[in-house]
């Protein structure tokens, strides 16, 4: 009786552990001796090891890919209890001088974070401080963002059409609509890369020098030259 299913639970566990140790490169000489003893009556264990090695290779890649989203998640430090109005002021004084600190002070009053109120100019000094008219609605904030972004060249404009995601009748009349607004931004990067995969399945990035511009779909109006 050499089939794996004939092992009782303890033997099956031992076999699984030995296979796992070999696959992980952690098998001791004692483990190898035990493996050879098993293989003397059941050679399928070698195939099992080979299959598990393949699986582990793919598993490592899949899990590393999946958990790599964590690199994009930072602690929301503005929620940190230690970041009180006073410490915000201190932080700004250290990082950006008295002017930035003044902005943070006002931003705290209107309930905004420093990033929302200060647009760095090319020389590193803060500019366009939206303090004169405190922002009181999301619409005003968006308009301000578009205005400042266009001035700095970081925002080209908003696409004229929105994408409707969901539309449901509202009991009080009309529809509740969930939609995407599309805003076109510009940034400067050191290089542009595209993903490629080598023979062993590892992903690497190769620089691409082509200047790619997405063409509008047929029938679509061309993007306006001036926003």
């Amino acid at each position: 009786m050499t089939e794996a299913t004939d092992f009782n639970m303890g033997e099956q566990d031992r076999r699984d552990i030995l296979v796992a140790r070999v696959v992980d490169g952690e098998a001791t000489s004692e483990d190898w001796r035990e493996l050879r003893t098993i293989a003397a009556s059941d050679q399928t264990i070698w195939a099992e090891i080979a299959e598990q090695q393949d699986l582990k290779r793919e598993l490592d890649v899949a899990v590393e890919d999946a958990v790599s989203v964590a690199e994009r998640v930072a602690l929301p430090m503005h929620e940190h209890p230690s970041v009180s109005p006073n410490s915000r002021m201190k932080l700004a004084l250290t990082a950006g001088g008295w002017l930035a600190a003044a902005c943070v002070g006002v931003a705290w009053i209107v309930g905004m974070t420093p990033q929302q109120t200060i647009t760095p100019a090319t020389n590193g000094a803060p500019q366009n401080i939206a303090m004169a008219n405190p922002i009181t609605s999301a619409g005003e904030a968006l308009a301000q963002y578009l205005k400042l972004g266009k001035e700095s060249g970081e925002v080209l404009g908003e696409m004229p059409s929105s994408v409707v995601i969901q539309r449901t009748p509202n009991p009080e009349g009309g529809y509740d609509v969930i939609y995407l607004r599309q805003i076109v931004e510009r940034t400067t990067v050191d290089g542009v890369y595209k993903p490629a995969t080598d023979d062993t399945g590892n992903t690497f990035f190769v620089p691409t020098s082509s200047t790619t511009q997405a063409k509008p779909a047929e029938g679509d109006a061309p993007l306006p030259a001036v926003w």
Partner: protein
Amino acid sequence: MSESDLIRRASGGDAEAAGLLWQEHRRWVAAVVLAHKPREADLEDLLQEVALVVVEKLHQLTEPEAFKGWLRAVAVNTARATGRKQTRRKGILKLAQHEIGNELADDGSKHDYVDPSGVERAERSRRLIDLIADLPEAYRECVLLRCVRGMSHAQISAVTGMPETTVETRIARGRRKLKELAQASAPKAVMK
């Protein structure tokens, strides 16, 4: 600075220390969330939730030795509690992606950069992650953690609070079951 010092400073309100601590641990936290979240819940959204809880509650941690277990508990609780609430929203987002995907499909020029082998690999990875979700819960977390930068049995034990021998057994059993699931889900050849 030792990790204990970092934890003490972070729990004492040092935002920079908290940030460093998070950077050091967030990948395995992602694996824990992945192990316990509902299938349709979005991993990145849940990690944002975990990060928020960490910021809000870290000051309650008094023992640095308890940090990993505490962080795991936050991840598990967030994945279980928040995951279900997000399922509906994810459905909506998927619809949006679908519609945008259709728009892109109409415009062949936007597919120039797609590397077929990369797409194939991504598809294989997605299927494997789906299969992991079918593993018994007891095995999922250990199997996933083992893949995060080759975490050792001792490190997994420190996170989960399980004895190392239990960790090793669960990984070994989990991998065998995963292989069986993969074989069962593979397209079968038809003999004529």
